[in-house]
């Protein structure tokens, strides 16, 4: 999978709610093969305060239409500017970057996404489904309106929802969802979301001896392993999230397999 710098063209920019947009970008040349969990680095044009590129997970790849979909949450100037892109605008993008999730086969798997952490889960669910897995997708958020595009996952698995205010699905933190107590025999857990949530899920996985992969979000300068800015402490010392990750086996991350102190525990 050779990395490339390309100009992609905005096909559609769909506002999902006040803070989230779905961006569909088209490539003129055939898209290279990509893996769920990999990401792209976008150069935000037209803002004097966005010097560095911004990393985003690949939400979905449509090889027929030659498009990549990104799910973008507006948090600062860069994402604001991206949310204002219009069809026809071109985007300077580097992709595919990082290591993706490992795709298991013929197992029952659980995907847990919190907030904008759902971004890579669509692509992941699709691939897992294709490889004969029984896919369970648990999506959490503060409120019903934070649960994005949950219908689209139904084609690939069972969808579970939890919201802190109970406005959609079960009420409570995503990590308190009944699926964790009702189901037991997941062959693998995939998780992407806020740090506290991922640690809690990783801890659950460890206790139940289930392999667990998490996708991290560190601040990045280069995205290609050149600057060493995006490190996380692994059992083997500092490693770059942009090249060794963003997806890691939770057991390889230092401090992740002990009871986390964030009070987001599952048991």
């Amino acid at each position, binding site marked *: 999978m050779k990395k490339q*710098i390309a100009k992609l063209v905005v096909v559609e920019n769909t506002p999902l709610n006040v803070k989230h947009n779905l961006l569909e970008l088209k490539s003129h040349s055939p898209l290279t093969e990509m893996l769920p969990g990999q990401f792209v680095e976008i150069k935000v044009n037209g803002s004097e305060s966005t*010097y560095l590129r911004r990393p985003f997970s690949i939400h979905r790849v449509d090889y027929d239409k030659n498009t990549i979909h990104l799910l973008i949450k507006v948090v600062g100037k860069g994402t604001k500017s991206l949310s204002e892109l219009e069809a026809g605008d071109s985007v300077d993008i580097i992709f595919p970057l990082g290591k993706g999730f490992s795709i298991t086969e013929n197992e029952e798997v659980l995907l847990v996404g919190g907030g904008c952490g759902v971004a890579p889960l669509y692509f992941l669910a699709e691939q897992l489904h294709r490889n004969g897995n029984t896919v369970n997708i648990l999506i959490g958020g503060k409120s019903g309106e934070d649960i994005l595009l949950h219908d689209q996952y139904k084609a690939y698995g069972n969808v579970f929802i939890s919201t802190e205010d109970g406005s959609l699905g079960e009420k409570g933190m995503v990590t308190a969802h009944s699926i964790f107590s009702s189901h037991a025999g997941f062959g693998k857990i995939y998780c992407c979301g806020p740090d506290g949530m991922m640690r809690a899920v990783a801890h659950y996985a460890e206790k139940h001896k289930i392999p667990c992969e998490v996708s991290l979000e560190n601040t990045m300068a280069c995205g290609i392993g050149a600057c060493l800015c995006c490190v996380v402490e692994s059992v083997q010392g500092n490693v770059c999230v942009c090249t060794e990750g963003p997806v890691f086996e939770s057991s390889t991350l230092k401090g992740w397999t002990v009871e986390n102190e964030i009070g987001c525990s599952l048991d």
Partner: protein
Amino acid sequence: MADLTVKIHNLELKNPVLTASGTFGYGREYDDFIDVNDLGGIIVKATTSKHREGNPYPRMAETPMGMLNAVGLQNKGIEYFVREIYPKLTEYNTNIIANVSDSTIEGYVNVARKMNKLDHIAAIELNISCPNVKEGGMAFGTSCPSAMAVTRAVREVYDKTLIVKLSPNVTSITDIALAVEEAGADSISLINTLLGMAIDSEKRKPVLSTITGGLSGPAIKPIALRMVWQVSKVVKVPVIGIGGIASASDAIEFLLAGASAVQIGTSNFIDPAITIKIIAGIEEYLIKHRIAKVKELTGALIT
């Protein structure tokens, strides 16, 4: 076609565009984007005597047209470099320059002595200007006696081209430049990063784990250009310009100010193919202005 070759002491460069240490990994990170062999040379990530884990995360903060880093010389040490990294570097067909760092003079000397034995390491760049380590680093580069001491010690064990990289965090850059020239530097490169800081006002905390870090990128270009101009007027050895170069025009400004070659740093993060574009842009400029050799630009500022 214009003649793009330049000479830095004994080093023959096919063109004046090098990559700055710490921003280009060991070259292979850029193999997907460019043919690294097209560059004048690459300066690889700093090597120290011993393995270093570097500083804790977070190590990066974005700033107006620049960034702060606090990587802190993370690397696996000279032994690992010789054993694992060097063999891969020999596959490149351009100048490979090692960036040598440490916290003690003995450390610098140890790394330099081992680099001296590596045929494919064309030169070393002595980094006496890293602001991101507690001991040594920048401290060597901010006083004339210590800059001279480390340069002299390394000079004794290193036979090939010795480049010394200066810190901009000083009152008189020319004093330091003259000191390292006297101590045996074959070339001077500048600037390393400026010591800066970023704060998250909402969290009321520093952004970097180390509180302060090194500022790089276009924001620092005017300062770098001024220092290159000042230094190249007083030293006899060739000067290599570094700091915020993002275009051929930027690179040419450094040559005009007195540099014989330039290094591209942070801009590689924004556009991994920028170096090749800069080389092409320099050639275009020479043709447009009917200048036969890029060498003629060095110090050609009309004042």
